[in-house]
């Protein structure tokens, strides 16, 4: 409800487009970096130089070098791939999982609903990141494990949202008509309900993508991320922590990268929401 209150203020049309375009542009830029990676990086991200360790920013190394002499800028560029793909993959799978669970619970109601909602509510009592940590610890340190962990922590809130929307739609006349006509449940779900829920789902996913990046990089920071020497931003921040007092420059670049990507997703999601669904937010 409060979100709806905040959103009801009218924005001049120019503002909406600003967020959407800003977000979209930034995301596109990151996507390009993710794809091109090594080709635009000035150095090989794994090339070490033990005689140039922990150097601050210079003309040769715009963001300096890390604790084994690798160029930080190159690592940031190549690292885009990890963060972006993990975030997108998590959102994709969380979307599928959330839609499946939410529609089943919302559409069929009754016992099914209670059981599924019960499990979802249970999982919602565990803080996002704690659930992700527990699963990452069990699934192991890898991009796959990370994706599983983040996906799992986003399915419950998504399922809840989908369930709510499906329940709303279920009451609509055209659904009653479809049932009378004898249309199968699966068809009703797929052809009538889900397309109408799509907007809400896509907006929610975009808004959550930023959160996924934050949680993913937090896990990397804690050492639960991908294997070395992969240049994942969160892991780079984690590794820089013990050098905080002697080489603080290590901290700057990965943090800026993460913040910009989250900003991009947030702006994009906000913009989408303003365009499609300004008044409602569960």
């Amino acid at each position: 409800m409060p979100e709806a209150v905040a959103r009801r203020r009218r924005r001049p049309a120019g503002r909406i487009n600003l967020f959407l375009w800003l977000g979209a542009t930034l995301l596109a830029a990151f996507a390009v970096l993710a794809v091109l990676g090594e080709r635009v990086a000035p150095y090989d991200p794994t090339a070490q130089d033990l005689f140039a360790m922990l150097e601050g920013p210079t003309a040769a190394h715009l963001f300096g070098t890390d604790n084994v002499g690798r160029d930080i800028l190159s690592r940031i560029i190549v690292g885009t791939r990890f963060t972006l793909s993990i975030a997108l993959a998590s959102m994709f799978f969380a979307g599928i999982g959330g839609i499946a669970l939410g529609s089943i619970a919302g559409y069929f109601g009754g016992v099914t609903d209670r059981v599924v909602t019960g499990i979802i509510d249970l999982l919602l009592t565990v803080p996002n990141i704690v659930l992700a940590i527990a699963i990452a610890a069990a699934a192991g340190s890898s991009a796959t494990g990370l994706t599983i962990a983040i996906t799992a922590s986003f399915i419950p809130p998504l399922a809840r949202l989908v369930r709510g929307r499906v329940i709303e739609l279920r009451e609509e006349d055209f659904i009653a008509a479809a049932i009378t006509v004898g249309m199968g449940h699966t068809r009703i779900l797929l052809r009538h309900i889900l397309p109408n829920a799509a907007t809400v789902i896509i907006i929610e996913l975009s808004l959550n993508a930023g959160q996924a990046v934050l949680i993913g990089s937090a896990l990397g920071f804690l050492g639960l991320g991908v294997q070395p020497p992969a240049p994942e931003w969160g892991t780079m921040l984690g590794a820089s922590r013990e050098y905080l007092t002697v080489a603080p420059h290590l901290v700057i670049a990965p943090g800026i990268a993460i913040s910009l990507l989250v900003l991009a997703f947030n702006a994009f999601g906000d913009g989408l929401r303003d365009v499609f669904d300004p008044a409602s937010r569960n």
Partner: protein
Amino acid sequence: MIGFLARRFATIPLVVLGVVTILFIIFKSVPGDEAAFVAGATATQSEIEAVRVQLGLDRPLVEQYARHVSGLVVGDFGYSTTFRGNPLPHIISRLPATLALAAAAIGLTILIGIPAGVLAAAYRNRLPDYLISLSVVGLLAIPNFWLGMLLIAWLSVDLGLLPSFGAGGPASLVIPTLALAARLIALVARMTRGVVIEELRKDYVRTARAKGLSKGLALRRHVLRNVMIPTVTVIGLQAGYLLGGSVVVERLCAWPGIGDLLLTAVSVRDYTLVQGIVMIFVVSFLVINIAVEVLYRFVNPRLRYA
């Protein structure tokens, strides 16, 4: 009220049981010999088998589950390899540190977030509003562990004003609280701004202003009362973030709470300890939610007799 509270508190054990069950399933499906972990690296096969019997790991899963749950009810959380015994007393002894951090974060959020939101609304579409809204956007994008590191690098290493790590007196609380509260402050500020703008538009306020009431007084007398509702809601919604965020912030700042302990437990595969801490998190989450609902009823008179 008593009935309401009783009902809500009664659901806690059920929820905890559910979470325990899920965790049990997750941890039992992890590959690896649990007895070998506990016995240690240099244990011989016979020593590992001894441990297996001692911990009851050779019994069927259902029996293990039953023993586990019945132990939990009396406060026996199992055998933690870190503490060589029941971890519950150790978890409880570290809990106040985490609660202190969370409380400080909530306090700071109310102290900074609400005034910021009010300011932004009062000077809507002018410079203060732009600055505050920009800060909100920024704070929502910045990872809290990065913010913490920057604060440490600047306030502690560069300026020497605050201690970098650990818990030693009120000064050491500053950086972790700032890092944790940043996101909350942004959300509350944004929320408050919206609510205040909305209220200022309402008829009763316009009437009062038409009659000559100054904006400031209008704000104070009418609007602020309604601000508490959404603020409390936001904090309630973000309880999960508060508890979860403490894990990362505690590790970063070496703050000796249960979040930091959770990470230690994970790194040494002490599943008993992990589970114990997750349970405490769940209970805390539920208690915060109940507290939020209670506050809600106080703040929103319309609900009081619901």
